[in-house]
């Protein structure tokens, strides 16, 4: 495939995000320019309050920027309404959160199946795809366990399986290892690396742990709502 002919997967131009008005106004993003090509592996870093989470929300189409433009695979996201952004998330994006965010009292399989329900796929197909995603994260034998019966690392892997199930182009991971010990964190990072390498899924990850950022090919550092640094990095795992 000739990549140069394609528009970049994610293109942010002069993105600003302002909360509140007057005295209480907070400028979370003060003009972000960021281009992510398909298949990239980004680590977004920065102190808390630097705007990295806000940027993730904008990229994930959960939040709308106050200014600037955001194109996803050439489509102007700012022109999309709420429901169209939901469609974009459904078909192109997968989310992994620090707190796993699995539905309680719902089996791993049902959790993974969730995005597929909204895709309107028939039940047999959904179960096959969810099963496949669980296999990929090594939890095929835990399909019928509730989140409360799984360890933190396993829960996060279920969450990754959920993000994967809809076969998205991009996985957005917000502090995916924030609640895990080092060993489990490494397992999660190995998994993400594998998905990036073998399946060509673009990974955008927010983290404040240098160790975890090591896995990424590109480091973007946020400071006070701006990108302070953006450089390629040779990942040891790669």
């Amino acid at each position, binding site marked *: 495939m000739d990549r140069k002919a394609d528009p970049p997967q994610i293109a942010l131009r002069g993105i600003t995000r302002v909360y509140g008005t007057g005295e209480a106004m907070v400028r979370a993003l003060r003009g972000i320019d960021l281009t992510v090509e398909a298949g990239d592996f980004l680590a977004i870093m920065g102190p808390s309050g630097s705007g990295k989470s806000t940027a993730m*929300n904008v990229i*994930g189409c*959960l*939040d709308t920027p106050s200014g600037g433009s955001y194109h996803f695979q050439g489509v102007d996201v700012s022109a999309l309404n*709420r*429901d169209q952004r*939901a*469609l974009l*998330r*459904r*078909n192109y994006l997968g*989310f992994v*959160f620090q707190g796993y*965010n*699995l*539905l309680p*009292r719902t089996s791993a399989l049902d959790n993974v199946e*969730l*995005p597929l*329900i*909204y*895709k*309107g796929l028939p039940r047999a197909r959904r179960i096959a795809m969810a099963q496949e995603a669980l296999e990929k994260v090594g939890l095929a034998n835990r399909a019928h366990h509730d989140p409360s019966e799984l360890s933190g690392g396993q829960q996060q892997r279920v969450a990754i399986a*959920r993000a994967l199930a*809809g076969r998205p182009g991009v996985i957005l991971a917000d502090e995916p290892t924030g609640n895990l010990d080092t060993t489990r964190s490494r397992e999660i990072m190995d998994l993400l690396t594998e998905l990036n390498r073998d399946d060509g899924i673009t990974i955008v990850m927010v983290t404040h742990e240098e160790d975890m950022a090591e896995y990424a090919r590109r480091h973007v550092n946020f400071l006070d709502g701006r990108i302070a640094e953006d450089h390629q990095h040779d990942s040891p795992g790669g």
Partner: protein
Amino acid sequence: MLLETFRLAVHAIFRNALRSFLTVLGIVIGVASVIAMVTIGQGSQVRVTRDVESLGTNTVMVVPGQGGMRQGGFTADRPFTVADAEAIQENLATVAIAAPYNITGITAVYGNQNHFTQLVGATTALMDAMNWSIAEGRAFTEAEERAGRPVCVLGQTVREELFGSIPPLGQTLRLESLACEVIGILEPKGATSFGEDQDDTVAIPLKTFQRRIAGNDDVSIIFIEARSDVSTARAIRDIEALMRDRRRISPGEEDDFSVIDMKQIASILTGITSVLTGLLSAVAGVSLLVGGIGIMNIMLVSVTERTREIGIRLAVGAQARQVLMQFLVEAIVLSLLGGVMGTALGLALGALGAHLMSIPFTPDPFVILVAFAFSAGVGVIFGYFPARRAARMDPIEALRHQ
């Protein structure tokens, strides 16, 4: 997708079965009371109609005054005499039987027992016409009737209340200043559809009543049976004409007596029953409304509790419409469940009530359908507001919710 939403709703409801049950309790009670009320009401109507028909559809009552049964019962208008009844019996070809009688409430005393009952001053003709048969002892003789002898016949209730296990025949019963001998016991007749115990009665000869109880020659009611080969309406016209003549009512003047067709009474009673049924059902309907508010309340709590779930669903690509449908369908399924349980409970209560009141159990599919549709409607109306709140959530806020 709708099937999925339905599955999801059932899943959510049974995930918290106890709370779901408590949530729909209001609907259950509402639907149950509407169905029970209507079922019992319709059963009573069937019973009333049947009772009146058993009296004979060609039966009419003549009472003094114009109010009749409609406005507070009998009035103080000029009463009748035995001669009036005799005139009707003798002069009208359309009338088979005309029997005069009197009724009053009285305390019957035997030994140290006393019991408030209904005293009837009757003739054997009347007792025959009203199907009062003697179970023990005998009825009045003509001689006793003519002489106004102090003899009485008791209903089963009076016998039980006053005599218990003592054989009553030959005993002396005191009715105010009248001491009368018990000569017979009536066959039990049960309660009327008014709930009046027909066995709670004492009968004495009409003349005894007039002389010893009332102290005059008045007759308060004339019981008439029209001949079976003529229409009741014609008999009524005849009776009215004759009575106007006997009471010297000039043309253009209003009657000072009423001729009551028992068929009319049946329709009046049926009317009263249906109004009562309607009123009670309306009250029950209000509890349906309250039940709906209960559902809204719990759904609002549920939406708040499940904020994070909503956030997750939005993040993985649920559209507002889909979240709205999820909660709306959940509310509807909840209230329909309440409707099903309420229908079952209502029918059970209706059957029990029918049994206790000895009226026929007549469940009406239409009412069940309406109560059911209403409960679904409650789900839609009271589920919409919480569902809309869920659908309008901001995904970021929702995901952050603890």
